[in-house]
């Protein structure tokens, strides 16, 4: 026994194992310090003669010090991890720029006209200052609501056929292909289709709110089909079998087990489809037209909508132009808020409807 270390062999083995598991790591504050320095440089650069773009770019380049530093201290695996993390955050910030810019522009320019009057008066007999977008809000809600009423049953039943009955046969494959084609229809073509359809019944020059709904439904249906289809496919087969084995017919199984289980996802999909079409301008310009007064009847005459109102206010502002242009921005802001509210509702719905107990 010549060993000088008095501790038993077992302890020394354990220590060796531990030190091989441990590695050199950067201190916990390293990322914060690097990002802090980079941000400071970016701000200073933006304020100096470099200008905003070059200043921010310089700051961004500085953040790459972190993976380089990590490479020296921690080795290649962690350095790659930090590099990819950095790239993902950069891409995320890049994607936020247009979003932030849109929200900022619309809010800063649209807020000035916001008032109770703006939201509750139409543009009937208004020249110059004053007036409101009540007629356009109602038009948008009615037309989009009717489009939803048309497209949700069609879309949901199509998805149910594809997933529950079609199981990959020719018909369901054909339907899926056509739905994919429909996804690519330009909105102006949907508007022309609705116009051509209504001309068949009512003659040239027809203008009707419901025509706009049909055009929007053409755009909505494929989105509803695809999202509902994905959600129905996520329902485990075991649940269908459990229900069938209890002697429940297939249609009741679908109505009471499959659809309720997928409901949260389906509702979210429908809301996103609504948000997608509520801002459509071109088809509504063709078939729903524009008007200054409130029209609650989808089946009679022109109907104003928010996107068309924003377009006409800014494109044909009249003299003097400021008031009309301000109202245009106000309409855009209202539309944005409606879409945000829709998304909020979708979140709430999917929270309250999703199966409990598995979170």
């Amino acid at each position, binding site marked *: 026994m010549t060993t000088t270390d008095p501790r038993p062999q077992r302890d020394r083995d354990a220590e060796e194992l531990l030190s091989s598991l441990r590695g050199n790591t950067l201190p916990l504050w390293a990322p914060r310090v690097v990002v802090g320095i980079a941000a400071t440089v970016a701000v200073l650069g933006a304020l100096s003669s470099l200008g905003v773009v070059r200043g921010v770019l310089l700051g961004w380049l500085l953040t790459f010090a972190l993976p380089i530093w990590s490479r020296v201290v921690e080795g290649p695996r962690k350095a790659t991890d930090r590099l990819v993390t950095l790239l993902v955050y950069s891409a995320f910030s890049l994607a936020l720029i247009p979003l932030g810019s849109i929200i900022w522009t619309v809010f800063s320019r649209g807020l000035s006209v916001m008032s109770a009057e703006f939201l509750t008066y139409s543009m009937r007999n208004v020249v110059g200052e004053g007036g409101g977008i009540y007629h356009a809000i109602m038009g948008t809600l009615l037309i989009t609501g009717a489009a939803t009423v048309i497209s949700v049953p069609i879309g949901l039943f199509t998805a149910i056929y594809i997933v529950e009955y079609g199981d990959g046969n020719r018909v369901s494959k054909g339907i899926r292909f056509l739905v994919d084609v429909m996804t690519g229809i330009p909105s102006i073509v949907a508007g022309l289709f609705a116009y051509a359809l209504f001309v068949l019944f009512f003659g040239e020059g027809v203008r009707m709110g419901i025509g706009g709904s049909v055009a929007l439904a053409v755009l909505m249906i494929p989105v509803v089909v695809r999202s509902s289809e994905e959600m129905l496919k996520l329902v485990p087969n075991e649940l269908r079998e459990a*229900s069938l084995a*209890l*002697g429940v017919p297939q249609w009741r199984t679908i109505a009471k087990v499959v659809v309720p289980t997928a409901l949260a996802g389906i509702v979210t999909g429908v809301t996103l489809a609504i948000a997608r079409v509520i801002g459509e301008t071109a088809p509504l310009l063709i078939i729903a037209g524009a008007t200054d007064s409130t029209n609650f009847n989808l089946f009679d005459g022109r109907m104003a909508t928010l996107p068309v109102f924003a377009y006409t206010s800014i494109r044909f502002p009249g003299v003097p132009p400021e008031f009309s242009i301000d109202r245009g921005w106000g309409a855009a802001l209202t539309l944005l808020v409606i879409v945000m509210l829709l998304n909020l509702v979708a979140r709430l719905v999917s929270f309250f409807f999703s199966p*409990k*107990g*598995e979170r």
Partner: protein
Amino acid sequence: MAKSIDVSDLNIYYGDFLAVEGVNIAIPARSVTAFIGPSGCGKSTFLRSLNRMHEVIPGAHVQGKVLIDGEDLYADEMDPVNVRRMVGMVFQRPNPFPTMSIYDNVLAGQKLNSKRMKKSESDAIVERSLRSAGLWAEVKDRLSRPGSGLSGGQQQRLCIARAISVEPEVLLMDEPCSALDPISTSVIEDLIHELKEKYTIVIVTHNMQQAARVSDETAFFNLSGVGKPGKLVESGRTEKIFSNPDEEATEAYIQGRFG
């Protein structure tokens, strides 16, 4: 009213793949029949063909005859929905409905078929079924909570309660105790003993002692080789199969000398 089952020359397919070949077996009424055999030999497949759940899988089909009290399950005029009401099933993996409470899960057979019941009546069914499945004490204070919030073994017993609450005349159980502790297992075995007074029970199990304990009849399934279809090797009174089987393979499997 219990029913006897007579199977003759049954071939079971998944698409072109022949999973189980040439089964001939008579399952007597008011008795417990155990299916034993190595994994993948087609016990679940055969069990599912007894209440027409097999054909739910796309491409799956059967050839041959399954008679329940003399009526052919696979005759053209037979409605699979009615067959499944008569022949209930507990699956190998627990599958409670995630959107329903524990209470509604037990009553799922009635609720999904929109059967109207008085509150007192449904309360009684829920309590009786949960007691029989040995789950009542654990869940009686949280009947309105979601069924998927239970542990795996509790979910399995919930599924057993759900299957017996509709009082099927035949009950098929696919490894009902594989996720259960010995105490819950013995509760389920007691339940099986009790149910066989009125019903016909078929149970798949990998536990030889359990097969010996609960069953009156035993059927041994085996694979004749890799990629070959599963076969019924022999069936008969449980005492005979366990003490003095006709086939060498059966004896080897039961004594654990298999493969």
